[in-house]
């Protein structure tokens, strides 16, 4: 008696509009851009201070220094020890964290909106007045060294780091682990961190983004008070070329005897965030390996049961970040999983997606966009991206329409241009004795075995 037909997919109701929340764009006289987004649903706020201090600016011998500088900010200021700073922040329930990536260091404050003024003041003090005391630098450096050692024993992390080294030419920043190496980090001094902060923690090339239950005029007043006297620009920063180590396909096996699974990474240099036709590329990687219903996941997981899951993605950066297929598979099926992955990639590049796949990916990406703008942190991060990559201010306003405008031809073209199965560096972390003979049998190129 319910009057419903279970045998057909129920029709959707009327679509409700969604627009990216309005951004109030301000700029202090010193050059610091201040973007404010009013998100009034809950009494919370997120502030992101983007600093032009990413790992991609550093030469190899200083690899990991930007990460260490960001993490050592918690060591305190000239006016407050690290413990006192943490107490001041946590007494108002605020979380403050610095995270450093290839493109930038982002210091994020998250608190109840009522405490934004106080929180921003503390954030400003932490960054502009950072002391990098000897004892704290020694401690944070020790932690980074321990993390580097830890990554070497985590098969997934090890695979990603080794894959990067196989994908990029020697000397390319993207080819090294973002934490640096034992050699590059062991000798870092407080003076080196102070020098780095002095050079790179500058308003030009960065920005402040605040999202939450806030008033733009009030935020501007706060920004002026906290950052009004902060001036300067970082040294000129080149964008990594992301040069390929070798365009010849090859297999690298990192031997981890006794592994019950093989971690697989198949990749080559991808495209920068500012690539023309970004949306078509996003659609194309979604179809190949970006969703549960992607070609790779339906094959490797749902058809063959080789894996818990597989993804293909491009790590978008200022320069060409890696295109990478990542998965972990049962040791016994390692070669079969590699073969199926390459078969799917070959076929996808050769034939392109179907109309239906493109329509499905467009619907998915356009639909999921507002779902990922639920929190003040998510909204602020999107706005900050514009600053990091120098993207046009209307990027998000027009994003869904551009996604909806991606044609089958454009998605197929993006696949042919940006996905090159014959150039893949294939990295396998697993039990070499078990997997090498069959991998050699696949005839994908030379197979080299390395120690971890």
């Amino acid at each position: 008696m319910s009057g419903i037909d279970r045998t057909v997919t129920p029709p959707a109701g009327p679509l409700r509009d969604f627009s990216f929340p309005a951004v109030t764009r301000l700029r202090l006289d010193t050059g610091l851009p201040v973007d404010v987004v009013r998100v009034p649903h809950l009494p919370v706020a997120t502030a992101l201070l983007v600093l032009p201090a990413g790992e991609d600016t550093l030469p190899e011998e200083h690899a990991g220094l930007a990460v260490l500088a960001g993490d050592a900010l918690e060591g305190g200021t000239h006016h407050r020890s690290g413990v006192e700073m943490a107490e001041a922040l946590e007494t108002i329930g605020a979380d403050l964290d610095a995270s450093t990536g290839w493109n930038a260091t982002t210091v994020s404050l998250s608190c109840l909106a009522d405490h934004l003024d106080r929180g921003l003041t503390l954030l400003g003090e932490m960054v502009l007045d950072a002391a990098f005391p000897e004892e704290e630098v020694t401690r944070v450096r020790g932690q980074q060294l321990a993390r580097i050692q830890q990554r070497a024993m985590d098969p997934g992390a090890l695979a990603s780091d080794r894959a990067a080294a196989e994908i990029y030419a020697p000397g390319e920043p993207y080819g090294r682990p973002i934490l640096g190496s034992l050699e590059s980090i062991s000798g870092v001094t407080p003076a080196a961190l102070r020098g780095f902060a002095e050079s790179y923690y500058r308003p030009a090339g960065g920005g402040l983004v605040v999202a939450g239950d806030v008033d733009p005029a009030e935020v501007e007043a706060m920004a002026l008070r906290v950052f009004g006297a902060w001036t300067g620009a970082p040294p000129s920063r080149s964008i990594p070329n992301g040069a390929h180590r070798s365009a010849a396909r090859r297999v690298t096996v990192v031997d981890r005897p006794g592994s019950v699974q093989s971690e697989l990474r198949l990749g080559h240099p991808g495209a920068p965030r500012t690539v023309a036709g970004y949306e078509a590329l996003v659609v194309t990687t979604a179809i190949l390996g970006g969703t549960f219903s992607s070609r790779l996941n339906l094959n490797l997981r749902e058809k063959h049961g080789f894996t818990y899951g597989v993804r293909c993605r491009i790590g978008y950066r200022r320069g060409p970040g890696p295109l990478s297929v990542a998965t972990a598979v049962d040791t016994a099926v390692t070669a079969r999983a590699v073969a199926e992955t390459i078969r799917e990639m070959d076929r996808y590049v050769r034939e392109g997606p179907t109309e239906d796949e493109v329509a499905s990916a467009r619907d998915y990406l356009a639909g999921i966009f507002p779902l990922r703008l639920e929190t003040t942190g998510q909204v602020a991060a999107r706005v900050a991206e514009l600053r990091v990559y120098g993207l046009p201010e209307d990027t998000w306003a027009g994003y869904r329409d551009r996604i909806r405008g991606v044609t089958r031809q454009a998605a197929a073209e993006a696949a042919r241009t940006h996905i090159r199965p014959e150039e893949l560096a294939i990295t396998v972390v697993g039990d070499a004795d078990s997997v090498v003979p069959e991998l050699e049998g696949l005839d994908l190129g030379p197979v080299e075995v390395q120690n971890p």
Partner: protein
Amino acid sequence: MSGTGPSSNELEPEAERVSRIDFTFHRRTLDNGLRVVVAPDRTRPVVAVNLWYGVGSRNERKGRTGFAHLFEHMMFQGSAHVPKNLHFELVERAGGSLNASTWFDRTNYFETLPSHQLDLALWLESDRMGWMVQAMTQEKLDNQRDVVKNEKRERYDNQPYGDWQERIQRMVWPEDHPYRHTVIGSMEDLDAADLTDVADFFQSFYVPNNAVITVAGDVEPDDAFARVERWFGEIPRGAPVPTIPGRTAVAIPMDAPATEVVEADVPLPRVMMGFRIPPYDDARFAALEVAASVLGAGRASRLYKNLVRAGVARDAFCYPFPLVTGASILLVGATGFPGSDPMGLADAVREQLRGLERVTQAEVDRGLALEEARMVRALEGLGERADRISMSTMLFDRPERVTEELDELRAVSLEDVQKTAAEFLSTENHATLAYRPREVEA
């Protein structure tokens, strides 16, 4: 806190901030026993649908450990009117996200999607609640068994410290307690499972009278109730859910401490301690949450200040699990540096626990301020909000508890923290698991 009834704290300035969370909750129970909560929030065109089934690894019988989780995988393999893989495909195509998870006491299934697609989620969820078993085949079972085995290899077997849960659970819980075995379970047990097990499990536990559904977001309450009724109303009520196997009543605290030192392929020494504590729905749980916050939340916490900043540990953590079957568990741990002795690390952690006798009001206030801000932030996303509403409804029969929980925390006094810490975070009441990195032969 409108819609949650009058609050005696309304005049307190602290409470006023939270009172700006303007949630309303509407609830009904269908004739078949399905509890329905609608929490409207029309600020964005998004809706979250979240179902909690009152079944988890605690309900597994001997010889079938891990089955609740395997069954969760099978719930995505289609139902009478939904072909295999279509579940994911349709929700993704609608621009939604979805998943499920299995834990000790419950299994949850959830979708977040554009609000005009609400019927899609209700169709898919009701079809598998009502008509899942008809679509099961041996091939699907074999395939998902392989997927789960790879999940276990990826997340546990091939991970440093990946067996910690199994080891801690074996020490904290007696032989016949339902928390004795892990959620991922034994692969031999999974091998032994067949389609009859799938049908039995479905019939026993996946019944409307053992479930809560929450619809949160861009909906009008009456319309949402009508839709839930339309899709779920005709599913027949099931028999009462079978009692949990084993013996759920346990002594709290534990009778005797236990220690295990493991030499393994781990990068750094690590110590983990499991304390047996009162269950999540016990009045004393709030004080333990505050104690955990004083100990381990934030960089001004005792563990961070006295172990991490002091250079003794690389990291340290403390949190209680919100479990409800007889008792729960609080976990405290720390990771050392190359060469440090894990048992020395254990002593350092114990010293911090003993120090809770002298906890100050300022520390309690700091912990509460962090909990408040984190709780409000956790409610920002509709998916998380809906999950907390389902939990509060299933465990406490009060959806409003998602915002009231903070009042319970605020009511905790300094003496409460000192007293519960002395009683439950004692040296006698815990199992210690220490990992020592295996010596590498040169």
